[in-house]
């Protein structure tokens, strides 16, 4: 027996589609706020908070976009054609450019360490950048709680025996494997799944986790140059290594 669309019930409140619809819709008010703040600045209105308002709204839009990208990638499991040879340095550079306004707003010094030859890695470029930016957002917002005289976030890459490790680093001592493991266990069940590290939900970390998993990479904790960080492990492109 044929059913009309009217026979279909309301969207379940826990459905992925409902969350996606909500995320898409939420971008509109944030966009309105961001562009109004920019318009006020362009019109020469002297109100110190305008750049911060714009940055906050722009950051919210990007986090929503990154979440939606994660869902989209997760919906295409095993599609290796999505990956391409990617320069880690250029992705870190672009991610740094995206993070800079929020870092400034939080008075966080942003360092970029992309010296060294890593060669191309196989990754979904947009996904990798979205993951790094999401991690950066989460850590930038967490850093003020560290109560350090100079808050600092570093984007960098290094080689390890597992591959090329690219991520965001800071001097938060609680950024450990155990914290990440606990966060993964608690996220979605508690308001503050990484309670030792950040006061909020840490959504950026779980968005990055989902994106990297969909890219067949993985999010891991990492230590580099006396800093602790969250990073993606990426595999070098073997074909281009032969050239």
């Amino acid at each position, binding site marked *: 027996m044929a059913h009309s669309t009217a026979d279909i019930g309301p969207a379940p409140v826990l459905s992925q589609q409902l969350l996606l619809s909500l995320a898409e819709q939420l*971008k509109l008010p*944030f*966009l309105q706020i961001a562009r109004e703040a*920019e*318009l006020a600045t362009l019109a020469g209105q002297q109100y110190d908070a305008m750049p911060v308002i714009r940055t906050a709204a*722009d950051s919210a839009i*990007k986090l929503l976009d990154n979440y939606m990208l994660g869902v989209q990638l997760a919906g295409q499991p095993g599609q290796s054609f999505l990956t391409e040879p990617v320069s880690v340095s250029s992705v870190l550079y672009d991610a740094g450019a995206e993070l800079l306004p929020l870092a400034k707003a939080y008075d966080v010094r942003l360092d970029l360490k992309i010296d060294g030859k890593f060669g191309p890695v196989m990754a979904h470029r947009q996904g990798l950048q979205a993951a790094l930016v999401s991690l950066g957002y989460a850590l930038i917002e967490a850093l003020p709680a560290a109560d350090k005289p100079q808050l600092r976030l570093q984007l960098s890459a290094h080689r390890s025996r597992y591959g090329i490790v690219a991520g965001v680093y800071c001097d938060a001592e609680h950024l450990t494997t155990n914290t990440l493991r606990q966060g993964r266990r608690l996220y979605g069940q508690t308001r503050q799944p990484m309670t030792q590290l950040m006061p909020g939900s840490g959504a950026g970390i779980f968005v990055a986790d989902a994106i990297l998993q969909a890219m067949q990479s993985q999010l891991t904790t990492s230590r580099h140059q006396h800093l602790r960080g969250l990073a993606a492990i990426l595999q070098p492109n073997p074909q281009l290594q032969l050239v």
Partner: protein
Amino acid sequence: MLGQTYHAALRGAGHHVQTCATAQAAILAADNIFPDIVVLELQLVSHSGVEFLYEFRSYADWQAVPVIIHSNVPVTQFVGGKSTLEQFGVADYFYKPTTSLRTLIGAIAQHTTVPA
């Protein structure tokens, strides 16, 4: 409401601006004012931005008018792909949520010979 923000920004940059909520209204407006440039959202009520492009480009008078797509649809999800954009002579494609007013105003200045 968002349209008013863009309207104010472009007017502030020295342009005469006509905003239209539907593709049909945009065709009628273009017939009246002969625009120097069109800034187009793809997600419209009823007829889409792509349908507007088909209609708009079908008139000889408007074939050379630059069109900038400024849309909530990311270019990676634009169904027609790059070839369709080229076919319609789309001058630039911007993803609205991450495009600043300054960038949009700069692109309009770049694609129009009329000084702002």
